């Protein structure tokens, strides 16, 4: 049955993906590769969090790097200055960033399109200045050292624990996105992406919707950033508040496919792995940025909707029996359908020839 395979194929793919992620630490040949795995999963969580705003509402934020940076610094400062236990600090930090996201969202979500992108970049640059200049609190350019949550752990074990923590966070983020995607709230968000004024005219309180999902996205982003602070142990404003981070997230999400649940995750796996690979290949030269740019250009040219939609389209092409879009319906099919329904319902006074002719016209027009 085609229906059964359509339902089971995604589930199987998810199971394989989950198994691959869970098995990775055992298969990683050395601690360096394992640490790269942590970096890639960090990107996966960030890209999925970004997609709460970008994928649902279509608002492209380049500022999510700053939200992750805020999460990282808030976690680090709560540990070092307030002596909170590491993971309590992480949760409190995420709540603080979520609270801060309310006024940020109220301001930024008033504008659309390119203006929103610019505002989100401004957020990164402002925070970079603040965290560099406010050295008495943040350590400024010297950075902030965050004590590790498990001091007794050896380095490979440390990576392994954080790899699984990230995998768990990723699972929660993906599950939350899935829940929203199928909900009424999610449908309203997608309507905003398609046509915000139209959604508003249909009764969707668009501003409130955007704000809620922005705050949710900020909370997940902050959790990922905070986890990074606890794992890496050293924060530098230049890296925490970098427009490049936000750009990477956009790249990953677009590459994987923003309208799909696992698009950003898959994009992060590809781009994150490529970034790590290019960094080892080209070292500290800017060549790794060039290589990333080339990768983006190639994918955008070949698969403008992203990798996952391209694969789905290819899959459908292999199974011609399942097609059911408007394009595959010929005028003759439609006329026949009309004919059949006319037999079912003989009451329609204007259901005869004009209706059939009009249908044909509409299909071609």
């Amino acid at each position, binding site marked *: 049955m085609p229906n059964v395979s359509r339902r089971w194929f995604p589930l199987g793919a998810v199971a394989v993906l989950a198994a691959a992620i869970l098995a990775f630490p055992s298969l990683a040949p050395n601690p360096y590769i394992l640490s790269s795995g942590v970096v890639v999963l960090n990107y996966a969580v960030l890209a999925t969090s970004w997609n709460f705003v970008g994928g649902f509402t279509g608002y492209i934020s380049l500022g999510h790097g700053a939200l992750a940076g805020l999460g990282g610094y808030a976690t680090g400062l709560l540990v070092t200055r307030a002596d909170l236990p590491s993971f309590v600090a992480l949760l409190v930090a995420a709540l603080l960033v979520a609270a801060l996201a309310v006024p940020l969202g109220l301001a930024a979500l008033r504008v659309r399109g390119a203006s929103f992108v610019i505002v989100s970049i401004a957020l990164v640059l402002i925070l970079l200045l603040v965290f560099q200049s406010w050295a008495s609190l943040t350590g400024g350019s010297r950075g902030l050292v965050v004590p590790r949550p498990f001091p007794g752990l050896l380095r490979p074990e440390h990576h392994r624990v954080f790899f699984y923590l990230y995998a768990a966070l990723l699972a929660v983020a993906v599950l939350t996105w899935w829940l929203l995607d199928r909900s009424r709230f999610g449908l309203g968000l997608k309507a905003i992406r398609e046509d915000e004024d139209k959604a508003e005219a249909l009764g*969707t309180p668009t501003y409130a919707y955007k704000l809620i999902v922005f705050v949710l996205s900020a909370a997940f982003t902050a959790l990922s950033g905070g986890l990074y602070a606890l794992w890496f142990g050293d924060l530098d404003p230049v890296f925490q508040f970098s427009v490049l981070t936000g750009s990477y997230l956009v790249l990953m999400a677009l590459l994987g496919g923003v309208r799909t649940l696992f698009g950003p995750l898959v994009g992060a796996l590809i781009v994150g792995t490529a970034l790590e690979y290019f960094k080892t290949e080209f070292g500290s030269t800017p060549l790794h940025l060039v290589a990333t740019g080339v990768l983006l250009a190639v994918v955008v040219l070949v698969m403008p909707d992203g990798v996952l939609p391209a694969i789905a389209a290819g899959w459908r092409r292999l199974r011609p029996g399942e097609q059911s879009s408007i394009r595959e319906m010929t005028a003759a099919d439609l006329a026949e359908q009309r004919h059949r329904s006319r037999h079912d319902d003989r009451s329609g006074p204007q259901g005869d020839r004009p209706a059939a002719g009009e249908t044909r016209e509409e299909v071609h027009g």
Partner: protein
Amino acid sequence: MTLETVELRKAFGGVVALDGASVAFQAGKVNALIGPNGSGKTTFFNCVTGMIRPDSGRTTYQGQEITRKPPHAIARAGVGRTFQLCRVFPRMTALDNVLAAVRPGGFPKGLRGARSRSDLDRARGWLTRLGIEHLADAEARAMSWGQQKLLELAGVLMAEPETILLDEPAGGVNPALLDRIGALVRELNAEGRTFVIVEHNMDLVMSISDHVVVFDRGRPIAAGPPSVIRTDERVLGAYLGV
């Protein structure tokens, strides 16, 4: 009284689009709003539905002030509208386009699945009534102009508005479809819905409306039943060009 405006005024820079428009539409009737291009009809719609803010003046709906309310609040008060250049959600299926008009209803309810049995039945019901049920799973952008116009109307109806504002329902549709839209408006009106229709197609206006308001230079210059409007000197001069 249903929808009523008092001295609505709106200027874009030096261009006065609405110049103190006071209009009262009739509840339970098919009202038409006609006038030359640039006479302020669409601006009037946009002010009434909250899409743009009037510079001054007031709008009431069923006696309640709605002048400064956001568009979604006005929609929820029971006023639905279509757009002059028909607007649908292009990358969503026809079914989702209609389901998007369902009121999610607050925090826990909003997280429920968007495809509940009852909502699906209602959505399919509207698609069927508008004759596009075979396109339920097609993306809106793949549909023809006429089909998109029907889809937009299906979405508006899904929200169960008591009053429906149609901005040029006949624009760019073929004669057979025009008849269908006209018949549909009369049917829905018979079921108790009030209509306000901006339209240039005089045959349609005169055949389906009970009450006609004529706009010129941002304000009404005449109002009355079609038979009276058809012979009104001011209307003939300003609009019908006789």
